[in-house]
Each structure stands twice: as structure tokens, then as C-alpha cells.
């Protein structure tokens, strides 16, 4: 309902975009880059950015873009769900296709435009250059002091592995527009740096990344192509949406160029082949079955193998993948390990490991792209409602209901914002899901607008249709589940179910509100308070005899005479769960002279006994 563009400058600015530009300047700049505008369709007629200020941000009629609803490429994983419109794919017969996008200049391009730059990294006591931008005569691997002597005007920036990993992940989210199966491959995916969790402190994050990564084990060597960060996309079954593999590759590379990143993209059958070719700087499409020939002449350094192995092989005169592959396998495996052989086979496309996607594959999805970015809340609401209708129709055709729906809004500057809602029972009513999203959509920050909105049902359950009013009580159950869903978007909702414990705080446990609660016979075993104080209140107590019930309670500074008391009820701690030194408790139910009833306990015995009020009866 509010135009948020003016109030909220875009968060998460990606570098290289000149986000401080005015919108008009930005559009003009994108106009000059029109061949690689990510939202421009090759077949879309007319100018890429028609100038209609009154229609800016409004939802375009669907004729401009087709609604792209597709089961993901992995839809075969759901048996019985394939009532979709596309012909049933026998995926065992369909060879998989992968797109690798290597980003060789990510370290430099992360910093955005603006003058020559030297990115350096500390290796021991030495500072060496790892990436160079806009400087002639300097190569990676030189000492920083040498490089600064050659190019004194260049800015020296320390490498920030955490920021690079975070940026790579953001780009991977951006790439979700091509296929739901996107994986990271590069330094970020190696089992090293938790550094993107704390991106700000550069020293701490770097030290961690150095120590744990395989990257840091090569002092003095120039960083080779293995460290080139790359994205790996499983595009099986998604290419026809973009007009073929070549068109998809072109769109991906041009889209990254628009965001300010140089990318080398290769499509091949095996992920290893595509990655090796992309890291070597290649570009193009490898036809199925020609993977081995394609990697024949590549240097060994593009493979994910130890650099010592590369060095040893090159001493024998084996510098290219084809040369090594012609050697007998047995001695090779004995000398250099199975991992080396495996990497070679992966590059040649003989074995293919499944990729691990950054986001789980949605069972059902619906997405829509917009020529004109959406800025206003009204336009976003209309778009989300249309997508929800499409998604729910597909869910209904498959006889399933969604438990978790994720909305991804792709901003024109490449950032992706995610909003997720969950439901207590499987649901496929667009109005209900729309109400759940209505609260959360407030958090979106459109900035310059969203050019793509995608909905994915990430968790679904079988859901049979209910005929209204036929099953008695079914309507109430559904109404109640919807109420809990709506409440859970804003506040915490839970039930307290009886638990197997006699320790007072553990007599009940929290369960989700939609689960049924069974009350055992004879529960509770004793009189319990109606209100349990979150923090027991320590009080003073006086008793006539050491083990007698209290006759006077001092709460704060006021003494209260006890009219009657029942007890004690001794409760010993659960030794299998609690701390061993936890004292037992004696509980009394007391009634003060005013009629107030309290649940009082004495914790500990003898001299160290302390008195608490724990609840109200």
C-alpha cells in the first residue's frame, strides 16, 4: 500500500551497478546495455523499456510474458504427482545437462568500478597479489610491494573470502531464475570458511578461511584456476523455456555481465566437464557424448586435484588431461590416489556426481517475469495472487497440499529476497495462503523493483479433496488450522501436552497447536497451580518447627499470616536429566489469611533451605 522506493534505498547493493545513480540514469544505462538486459526476451517485440511513467510498476498483462509454471527438473522424485501439462518425461532416458558459470574476476569485480585495484592476501609474512583489476604489467602471485612499485596509482585491497562467498551465494540465488537446481562450486563450497556468517571483521574471517581451506596450503604459488569461484546449474529440462541451450547460456552470461561480473559459461553433460571447461576460460555448448574430447587439451590445473599432484605429473611431462588419461590407470591410482583418477573421470564425463543445490528443490513452483519492475505493494499483491492461483491449481491437479511455500523476489539489481510461510495442515487455498503472505510481504524491499517473482511449494503432503459440509467436524478442523496459521505469522502459538515427568516445570511440554493432545487418566497426580510463575519468587518463611509448614510468609517486606497449609509434597530431581547437585523440593499449598492461595516450595533442606513462591492455586 505504500510506495517504499523513496523511503528505502536498496539494501544489499551489488557492486558494479552504480546504485547511487538516479533511476532515470540507471534506465538509460541499462538501455545502452540492452542486448544483455536480463529481463529482455529475445522474442519479445518492441522496445525493451517502453517509457510509460504512469504504468511503471504496474502489473503487465500476462500476454507480455508467459506464466512459467513448471515442475522442477527433478519432478520425477514425486511419484504420483505428475498430472502436469508437459509430456511425462522418462528421466532415466534423458541425459542430464549442466551449465557451469565460472567467475574468474569475482574478487576484483566485487569491489565495483572505480580505478585500478590490487587484491592481495597475506601468505605468511608476505603479501601477495591474488587478483588484478585495470593494471598493466602486474600478474597474480607477485609481491604486493613489487606490484605497487609498478602501479603506484592502484588501490590495494585485502582479500575478503567471507564477502566473496556471500556474494557467490547471492549470485547463486539470482541464478535460480534459470533452474531450481543451483550449486556453488569454488572456495565457498570447500569445507572451509564459516566466514560469511561474520562478514565484517576481515582479520578473523580471513584467518579461519586460510587455516581450514585447501586454498591456503600453497604458499608462494600463484592462485590457480581451482580457486575460481563457479556456479553449477542443472538445466535438465529447463532449456526449452529459454529457447534452447545456446540461448540460455547467452542469457546467463549476459545477465551476469549486466550485474557487473565477467562469466565464462559452458554447458556439458557432466558437471565436471562443464566446470573444467569454464574454469579454463572456455565458452560454448558441448554436445552430448563429446565430453572426453572437449577436455582433451585442458591443463591439469583446472581439475579439483591437489597442486602437488599437478606438479608431480608435469615433471613427468604430463601436462594435459588427455595425456594423463592415456596412461595406465593402475599405476596412476597407486601413485596419485583414487581422488585424482576420479577427478579425471569426472572431467571426461565418465562419472557424474549429483550436485547439492543451495535451496531444496520445490515440489511445485510458479514464477512470472516482468518487463517493467514491480515497485508498489499493490502490483506485488496482484502478482503474488496470480502466482498463488497458478500454484494451487497445480497442487490440486496433483492431489497435494503445501506445508511450506517460499516466495523469491528477484530484484533488478540481482539481489533475491525470500519470504516463507508455513501451514499447520496441508493447504492449497489461494485466499488462505494469500492472507499468510500478506503479513510477510511488508518486509520486502523493492528498491528499484522486482523483475521476477517465483513461488515454490517446498514441502507438500497428499491432500484429498473434502466436500464441504459432508464430513462433520472437518470444516471446524480446517478453520482452526487456518486460524493457527494466521496467528503463527505474527505471534507464538502452542499447546501444552502432558509429559512423562514429575518435575513441576516439565509436567507439560510445548507441542504445535495443530497436534492433538491426549490427557492420560488420573492426570495430574496432585493439585497443581493454575498459574506457574515464569521466575519463582524468593520469599522469607517462618515455621514453628524445622519441618513444619510455614506459618508466616514474607513477600517483599510484607509479612502474610498463613491460615492453612497442606503438605509437604516432596519432589526429588530427575537424576537422569537434571544437574546432580540440584536439591529436592518440598511443596506446600498455603492459603493466606486474605484467601490468596499460593504454591510454595522449600528448595534444599536444613540450613541452606530457600523458600520460593512458584505458582498460584
Amino acid at each position, binding site marked *: 500500500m505504500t510506495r517504499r522506493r523513496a523511503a528505502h534505498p536498496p539494501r544489499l547493493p551489488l557492486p558494479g551497478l552504480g546504485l547511487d545513480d538516479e533511476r532515470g540514469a540507471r534506465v538509460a544505462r541499462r538501455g545502452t546495455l540492452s542486448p544483455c538486459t536480463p529481463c529482455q526476451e529475445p522474442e519479445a517485440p518492441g522496445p525493451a523499456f517502453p517509457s510509460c511513467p504512469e504504468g511503471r510498476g504496474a502489473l503487465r498483462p500476462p500476454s507480455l510474458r508467459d506464466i512459467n509454471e513448471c515442475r522442477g527438473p527433478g519432478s520425477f522424485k514425486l511419484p504420483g504427482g505428475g498430472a502436469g501439462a508437459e509430456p511425462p518425461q522418462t528421466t532415466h532416458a534423458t541425459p542430464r545437462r549442466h551449465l557451469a558459470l565460472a567467475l574468474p574476476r569475482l574478487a576484483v569485480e566485487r569491489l565495483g568500478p572505480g580505478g585500478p585495484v590490487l587484491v592481495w592476501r597475506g601468505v605468511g609474512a608476505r603479501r601477495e597479489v591474488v587478483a588484478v583489476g585495470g593494471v598493466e604489467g602486474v600478474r597474480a602471485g607477485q609481491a604486493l610491494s613489487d606490484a605497487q612499485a609498478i602501479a603506484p596509482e592502484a588501490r590495494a585491497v585485502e582479500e575478503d573470502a567471507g564477502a566473496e562467498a556471500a556474494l557467490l551465494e547471492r549470485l547463486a540465488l539470482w541464478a535460480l531464475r534459470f533452474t531450481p537446481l543451483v550449486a556453488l562450486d569454488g572456495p565457498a563450497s570447500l569445507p572451509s570458511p564459516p566466514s560469511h556468517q561474520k562478514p565484517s571483521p576481515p582479520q578473523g574471517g580471513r584467518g579461519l578461511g586460510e587455516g581450514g581451506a585447501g586454498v591456503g596450503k600453497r604458499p608462494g604459488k600463484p592462485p590457480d584456476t581451482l580457486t575460481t569461484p563457479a556456479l553449477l546449474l542443472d538445466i535438465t529440462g529447463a532449456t526449452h523455456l529459454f529457447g534452447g541451450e545456446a540461448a540460455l547460456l547467452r542469457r546467463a552470461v549476459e545477465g551476469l555481465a549486466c550485474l557487473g561480473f565477467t562469466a565464462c559459461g559452458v554447458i556439458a553433460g557432466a558437471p565436471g566437464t562443464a566446470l573444467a571447461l569454464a574454469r579454463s576460460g572456455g565458452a560454448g555448448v558441448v554436445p552430448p557424448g563429446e565430453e572426453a574430447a572437449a577436455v582433451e587439451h585442458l591443463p591439469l590445473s583446472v581439475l579439483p586435484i591437489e597442486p602437488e599432484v599437478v606438479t608431480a605429473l608435469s615433471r613427468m611431462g604430463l601436462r594435459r588431461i588427455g595425456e594423463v588419461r592415456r596412461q595406465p590407470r593402475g599405476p596412476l591410482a597407486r601413485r596419485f590416489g583414487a581422488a585424482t583418477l576420479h577427478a579425471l573421470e569426472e572431467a571426461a564425463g565418465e562419472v557424474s556426481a549429483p550436485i547439492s543445490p543451495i535451496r531444496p528443490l520445490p515440489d511445485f513452483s510458479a514464477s512470472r517475469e516482468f518487463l517493467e519492475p514491480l515497485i508498489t505493494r499493490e502490483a506485488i499483491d496482484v502478482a503474488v495472487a496470480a502466482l498463488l492461483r497458478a500454484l494451487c491449481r497445480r497442487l490440486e491437479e496433483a492431489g497435494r497440499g503445501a506445508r511450506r511455500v517460499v516466495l523469491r523476489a528477484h530484484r533488478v539489481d540481482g539481489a533475491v529476497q525470500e519470504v516463507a510461510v508455513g501451514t499447520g495442515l496441508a493447504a492449497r487455498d489461494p485466499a488462505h495462503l494469500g492472507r499468510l503472505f500478506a503479513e510477510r510481504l511488508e518486509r520486502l524491499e523493492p528498491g528499484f523493483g522486482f523483475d521476477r517473482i517465483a513461488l515454490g511449494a517446498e514441502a507438500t503432503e497428499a491432500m484429498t479433496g473434502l466436500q464441504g459440509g459432508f464430513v462433520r467436524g472437518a*470444516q*471446524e*478442523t480446517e*478453520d*482452526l488450522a*487456518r*486460524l*493457527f496459521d*494466521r*496467528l503463527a505469522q*505474527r*505471534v*507464538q*502459538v*502452542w*499447546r*501444552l*501436552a*502432558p509429559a512423562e515427568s514429575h518435575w513441576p516445570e516439565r*509436567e*507439560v511440554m510445548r507441542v504445535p*497447536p495443530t497436534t*492433538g*493432545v*491426549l*490427557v492420560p487418566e488420573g*492426570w*495430574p497426580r496432585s*493439585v*497443581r*497451580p*493454575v*498459574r*506457574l*510463575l*515464569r521466575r519463582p519468587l524468593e520469599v522469607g518463611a517462618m515455621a514453628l518447627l524445622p519441618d513444619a509448614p510455614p506459618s508466616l510468609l514474607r513477600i517483599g517486606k510484607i509479612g502474610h499470616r498463613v*491460615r*492453612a*497449609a*497442606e503438605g509437604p509434597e516432596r519432589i526429588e530431581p530427575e537424576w537422569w536429566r537434571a544437574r546432580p547437585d540440584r536439591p529436592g523440593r518440598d511443596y506446600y*499449598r498455603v*492459603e493466606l*489469611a*486474605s*484467601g*490468596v*492461595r*499460593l504454591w510454595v516450595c522449600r528448595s534444599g533442606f536444613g540450613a541452606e533451605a530457600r523458600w520460593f513462591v512458584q*505458582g*498460584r*492455586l
Partner: protein
Amino acid sequence: MDPDPTPYPLPPEPLPMDRPALLAALRARIGRLERAGAAAALARSQAGVVSLSESLDAHLPGGGLARAGLHEILAGEPGAAAGFCAVILGRTGGPVLWIGPDPDAWPPGLMRFGLSPAELVLVRAPRPTDGLWAMEEALRCPAIGGALLSLSEIDLTAARRLQLAAEAGGALGLLLRPDTEDAGPSAALTRWRINALPGDSGSPHQLGDPRWQLDLLRCRGGAPRSWTVTWRTTTDRLDTDADTTPAATPRRRRA
């Protein structure tokens, strides 16, 4: 032959001298007019009023606490008020939401007052606006039996909203507030004040059944009154003491 186009049937013509019957019929008719908004919800739920006990029901208009309405409870003593709320909510016969900034309702104890954990759902709404929103959403849902909102201050507009929501959904709403000197105007149908009384066991080693002082401070279509009641835990009954005072003082007694 009656030219009056009123949708409500006129009461049968009473005898001219039967003033009590005439007044009762008129009162019933006004009650139907006032509760016209809740008529649809009440007809849908097919559940009558929430009955408390014979003498309380006899005094309340409609013979009990009306559903599809909001009732306000001033807690003179928090424990007794929670018990009384549990008695009411347990008798609504449906799922019950207990909404508060930090809901400390403890099901093992509420079970004694007839509210089963199977029916109780707790909602934590830290801010008052969240609590009011959650209460309104809950009251608009036709599937619940009752909802309780625990808060300290409420303005007339918010209370009126809750009352309208209850009329739309058909549930019984309770506003649990601390007892203050001047509780202000209210949009609720009734306002009660609960205080704890010493038990009548007579033994210092036995608490006996809980006894409460119930003050009906305000009642739409009824008169204020006070009772001294005892909750019989063994029979799940609210027993009224015979020595009830005829009318409560509208002002709070100075302690």
C-alpha cells in the same frame, strides 16, 4: 393484518395488569434487537448460553453468560480469576485460546477447573496491538469455543471491535484485566470482579475447595449483584452460598 413491518414477532398480548410479564417480554424483545448482529452466529452454533450455576444463571439475562459476546473480568486476585476464567472457558465446549503477553496458564492446575489441556491453546503476544489482533482473529473464527485476552488497558474502540468480532464469530470472549480503582467504560456485555476468600474448611491443615467473592459490576440488561461461591472440585460445580448480598456497591470498597 399487522401493518408494523418489524421482523420480530410481537409478544403475545398480556393481561393489562400483568406488569412483570409485560416487562419481561419487552426486555426479551429489546435484547433480541440489541443482539441482532450476533443472531446469525448464534443460530449457526446451535449452542446456548454458558451456564455457571443456578443462582447466577437466574440473575443473568438469557439464563447464563451469552456467547457471541465479550465479558470483562477484573482480577482482584490473579489465581482466583484464572480459576474462574477456566470454569467459563471449559464450559464453552470448544477449543480455547489463552492470549497474553506472557501466558502463564498452567494446564495441570486448570484441569481442576474443568479446562482440559486438549482444548487449551496458548498464544504469546508480547505487544498489546499483537494481542488485540490475535484476539480479534480468534473471535472471528467460528471453530473456537472461547478466547481469553489478558491485558492491562483497553480503550473503548478496541473493546467494541472485539465485541463485534465476537458477534461475527459466535465465540465467547473474555478480557482478563487487573482490578483497578476506575476500570472505565466498557463495550463488554458484563463486567465481573473476582476476589479470593478464605476457605471454609476450618482446619489449618486443609485448604478446602476454593471460595471466591464474585461481583457482577455491570451487566447489559441486568442488575449488579454479588455472590460468594465455592468451586466444588469433586463435582465440578459452582455452589453459591445462601447468604448472598442483594446488590453490590458500584464503587470499589476501600481496602
